[in-house]
């Protein structure tokens, strides 16, 4: 497939791995990949095994399903169980456990819960079922928020009065600020999230290099992209500098996607606080609907518990999301918590670090070397 195969070229992967070694950077180097999509690419292709031992990849909080706290899921479940409701969600959310079961459990109990590929599919269901209240569970970082914005505008334009958004969109920069403020943080650089950055552009990351002296390389998701980004970070470090660079220039413009940013601003505003799983309450880190769109705001239209609920004691998703713990170091990993019977979100989501370790973590170095040999 074009724009995918070329970036999986084994010759380029090998050349890049050698080039990274050639930089002969010998101090310990910790690089956080912010985005769960990167975590999966790294494990799926065994890229971590191609790096010198002193370069460690640490997994970050950029998994939209993983960071939704139990309280919000309980709110979703109470909406889904209300009468005359069709509750729509991305498939990834279905198996996330709330304090009393998951959406999948609620569906088994008779609630009308449907998974959709796109918010526009949810709007279509609303048009086709005028006697039902149709709720869409909107989650995701800045990558996904523009699609919510466009769908809201469409619903408003068409006057679809039975359509509601449960808005849980989160923002990447406030989460990074929270990570950078942690006293025990030991990171030298970040692989920046490629598709979030396609929307927000490069400028929002500049404070990380300027004020914190850490490198940021905005990266694509194929093996060549990831290794080239690691190469650029190591090169910055060998040269003793920190900067924001754009490896994924085929998708990211400096200014981002101005149309998308404008539509987001037109429909949504920043919440004073939002509770993140693992990271706690972070100021100005999420979006809610603007008052012009309050008729579509599920939080206002439904009576929800709105409570803060602690994670189960055994679950260490919080530490995994902060990069403080590797998935296999969690006390529940692959024993009490598996993809079939997950306790924490990091094991549920296809972008969760625990799911990546569970699926690919047992890949041997020899298999990786074979994969990239010719």
């Amino acid at each position, binding site marked *: 497939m074009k*724009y995918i195969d070329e*970036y999986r070229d084994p010759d380029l992967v090998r050349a890049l791995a050698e080039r990274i070694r*050639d930089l002969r950077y010998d101090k310990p180097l910790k690089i956080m990949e912010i985005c769960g999509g990167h975590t999966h690419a790294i494990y799926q292709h065994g890229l971590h095994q191609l790096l010198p031992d002193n370069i460690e990849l640490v997994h970050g909080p950029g998994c939209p399903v993983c960071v939704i706290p139990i309280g919000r899921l309980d709110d979703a479940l109470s909406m889904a169980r209300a009468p005359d409701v069709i509750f729509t969600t991305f498939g990834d959310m279905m198996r996330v456990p709330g304090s009393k079961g998951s959406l999948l459990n609620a569906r088994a109990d008779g609630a009308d819960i449907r998974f959709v590929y796109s918010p526009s599919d949810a709007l279509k269901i609303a048009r086709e079922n005028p006697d039902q209240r149709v709720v869409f569970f909107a989650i995701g970082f800045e990558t996904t928020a523009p699609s919510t914005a*466009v769908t809201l505008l469409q619903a408003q334009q068409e006057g679809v009065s039975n359509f509601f958004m449960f808005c849980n969109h989160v923002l990447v920069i406030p989460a990074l600020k929270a990570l950078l403020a942690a006293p025990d943080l030991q990171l030298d650089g970040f692989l920046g999230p490629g*598709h979030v950055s396609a929307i927000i552009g490069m400028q929002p990351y500049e404070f990380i290099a300027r004020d914190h002296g850490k490198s940021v390389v905005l990266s694509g998701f194929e093996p060549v992209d990831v290794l080239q980004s690691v190469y650029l970070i190591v090169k910055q470090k060998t040269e003793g500098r920190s900067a924001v660079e754009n490896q994924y*220039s085929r998708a990211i413009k400096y200014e981002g996607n101005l149309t998308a940013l404008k*539509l987001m601003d037109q429909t949504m505003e920043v919440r004073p606080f939002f509770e993140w799983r693992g990271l706690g309450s972070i100021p100005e880190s999420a979006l809610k609907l603007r008052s012009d769109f309050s008729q579509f705001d599920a939080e206002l239209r439904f009576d929800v518990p709105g409570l803060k609920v602690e994670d189960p004691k055994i679950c260490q998703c919080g530490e995994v999301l902060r990069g403080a713990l590797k998935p296999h170091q969690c006390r529940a990993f692959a024993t009490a918590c598996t993809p079939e019977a997950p306790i924490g979100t990091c094991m549920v989501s*296809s*972008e969760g670090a625990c799911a990546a370790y569970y699926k690919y973590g047992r890949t041997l170095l020899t298999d990786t070397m074979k994969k990239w040999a010719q």
Partner: protein
Amino acid sequence: MCLAIPGQVVEMSDPGHHLARVDIGGMRRQVNVMLVDPEGLEIGDWVLVHVGFALNKVDEEEAHETLRLLREMGEAYDRDLAELAASAVRDEVAA
């Protein structure tokens, strides 16, 4: 979820609703192109598709440029090694 897949525009199927038909790895789907300046979009263009919306156009020139730089880097490296191997002056420690 944050993944976006490259797809090629095959038809401007419903410009009034900003919809285009996009071929994504052999599967065709209606994609909302409102975020990528639908006026400037042409059949054959590549877009990154995420949850039924085109996030951005894939910049073909930039895509080629990235690969060209990487290939050059690979070639320069191979050339270095070849020159080293071919060099008449060997800097080896005698066994």
